[in-house]
């Protein structure tokens, strides 16, 4: 155990000190921060400027509290018309009976002006109408946009981190094998300690990355006000992302180490890893598709199938409400898959890592006793 922790600590220590690590951490932090401010910049509330000629202001702000209204009084219709054509005002109310605009009036503004005008007139005539009570009997869709946004960002982050850290594991394994450091390492620690330490160390680095993204993302969301749109259970979503990252990473990194132990040169890493990279890409595509249809059959089924579940389930959790038992069942299946990969990967690694030279065939490794 001690040997494994020493290996893990070395991995963390050497990586954290590199400039590449610091820079990439900074870039992700800035990107995520910018992303949290994006909705506010893109989705600004409507604002209208309305002119009046010889009219009372309509209680528009009362009817549409999200929008802002500015009123400008004009001495006569001629001046108002000029302002409308110049684009200074969106519409002008003439004598309380007519509205002039440049071309067709914007629908929302038109409807607002009609209904508030009607209300004011009816109110003046002594008629009061209780407003309609709105009630949804379907799913809560208030947070849909925010949920989808969060899910899209999540799937991207998970994909980048998993593929990045997995690649690091593979390159580290080949570095040690190719340079024959393994000969010394394995005369002082056991193969599983070396393998485990490497996977844990690089996994911790991945978690540092993910943690930074989450902290910066959440902080920026609160700062930008985007957090107001957060769906309930945000803490659960965040915790879920961490757990699913750990499971997915453990699965893919173990396979990566096993595959990489078959070759002795860095140039061969890409080649030997290609089936695994393809698998990760496939998981990514399914997960990305799930962001647009999180309640669909495909997303639901695949969110139970390891290793795809490690990317699809967090997407579903972010994009819709997922019953707890489903999350638990999917996680249990994934844990079983991780354990199976660990025993398989450790076996391959142990048998292949000392066989330098030409690429070792997987079949040969599995057959050898």
């Amino acid at each position, binding site marked *: 155990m001690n*040997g494994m922790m*020493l*290996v893990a600590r*070395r991995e963390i220590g*050497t990586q954290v000190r590199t400039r590449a690590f610091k820079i990439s951490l900074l870039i992700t932090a800035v990107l995520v921060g910018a992303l949290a401010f994006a909705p506010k910049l893109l989705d600004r509330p409507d604002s209208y400027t309305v002119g009046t000629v010889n009219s009372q202001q309509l209680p528009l702000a009362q009817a549409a509290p999200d929008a802002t209204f500015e009123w400008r009084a004009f001495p006569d219709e001629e001046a108002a018309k000029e302002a409308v054509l110049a684009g200074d005002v969106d519409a002008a109310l003439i004598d309380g009976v007519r509205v002039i605009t440049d071309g067709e009036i914007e629908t929302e503004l038109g409807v607002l002006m009609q209904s508030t005008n009607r209300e004011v007139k009816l109110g003046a005539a002594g008629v009061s109408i209780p407003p309609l009570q709105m009630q949804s009997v379907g799913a809560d869709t208030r947070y849909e946009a925010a949920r989808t946004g969060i899910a899209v960002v999540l799937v991207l982050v998970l994909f980048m981190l998993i593929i990045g850290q997995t690649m690091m594991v593979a390159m580290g394994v080949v*570095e*040690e094998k190719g*340079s*024959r*450091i*393994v*000969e*010394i*390492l*394995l*005369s*002082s*620690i*056991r193969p599983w300690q070396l393998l485990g330490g490497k996977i844990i160390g690089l996994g911790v680095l991945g978690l540092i990355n993910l943690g930074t993204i989450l902290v910066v993302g959440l902080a920026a969301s609160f700062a930008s006000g985007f957090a107001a749109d957060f769906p309930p259970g945000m803490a659960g979503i965040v915790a879920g992302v961490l757990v699913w990252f750990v499971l997915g990473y453990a699965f893919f990194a173990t396979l990566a180490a096993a595959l990489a132990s078959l070759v002795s040169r860095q140039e061969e890493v890409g080649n030997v890893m290609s089936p695994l990279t393809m698998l990760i890409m496939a998981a990514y595509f399914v997960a990305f598709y799930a962001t647009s249809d999180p309640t669909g059959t495909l997303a639901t089924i695949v969110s139970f199938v390891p290793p795809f579940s490690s990317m699809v389930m967090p997407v579903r959790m972010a994009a819709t409400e997922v019953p707890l038992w489903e999350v638990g069942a999917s996680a249990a299946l994934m844990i079983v898959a991780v354990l199976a990969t660990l025993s398989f990967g450790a076996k391959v690694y142990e048998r292949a890592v*000392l066989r330098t030279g030409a690429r070792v065939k997987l079949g040969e490794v599995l057959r050898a006793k």
Partner: protein
Amino acid sequence: MLEISELRKRFAAAPGATEGKLALDGIGFTVRPGEMFGFVGANGAGKTTTMRIVMGVLKADSGSVSWQGKPLGYGERQRFGYMPEERGLYQKMRAGEQIEYFGQLHGLSAPAAKKATDDLLERLGLTERRNDSVESLSLGNQQRVQLAVALVHDPEVLILDEPFSGLDPIAVETLATALQERCRGGVPVIFSSHQLELVERLCDSVGIVSAGRMVASGTVGDLRAAEGGTLRVVVRGATPGWADGLPGELSVTGDRHTLLVAGGDDQEILRRALKAGHVEHFGVEQPTLTEIFKEAVA
């Protein structure tokens, strides 16, 4: 005592070949505590393969390795120091940190590893390079770091595969002294080398391996005795034909006749030489390890 007995190893056949290479064919030898054992043999003789098997990096097909009477296992190997033939270090890691790291992997506490590293760097003349990355060191200095990695945990046994190759004469002396010190402390040291004069000078005993078998082993003195010396006789102004009927080879330059004889009746030769002329030199010359080696692997 480190006992290696009857090791056999056949490598897997290359694609297309019917039979793999038989690298070890029953090699065996023992090394006592405090003994410096020189492992020599032609390229491809099986030295590296033997050392890898001792370190558990390779598995033998048959045969055994035991340390202090017990089969050598993982726990014991952890207290061994090993320098592989193909040097392996983390290129981007600092020299000092690397030595400390391996010290800790071998079970030293962090402060103990640091102290041992400081001492070794001092001994090996690398104190100034402590914080340099390994890749920025010269080949010889990388080799010193590699050696430090093998020594940092004060090993019970040292297995070094060609530790002297690539070192300058000063570094060779430093390393030789370091090894002799460990040896005096009771550590058995095995090292392979192609520098036979060095082996002759440093080693208590020598093993000559050829085609996976130990063809000669023992102290350098034993090997010499087994090989036998060469009698060298120089006679001035001898009458031609004086050595007819005597064994050995005669060479004549001017009036100097030199006779080299391996074995034979030395008293008879001396009598004949005295009769023939003025005997300038008469003596037995010890074979060098190189000569013994050539003879053994021939």
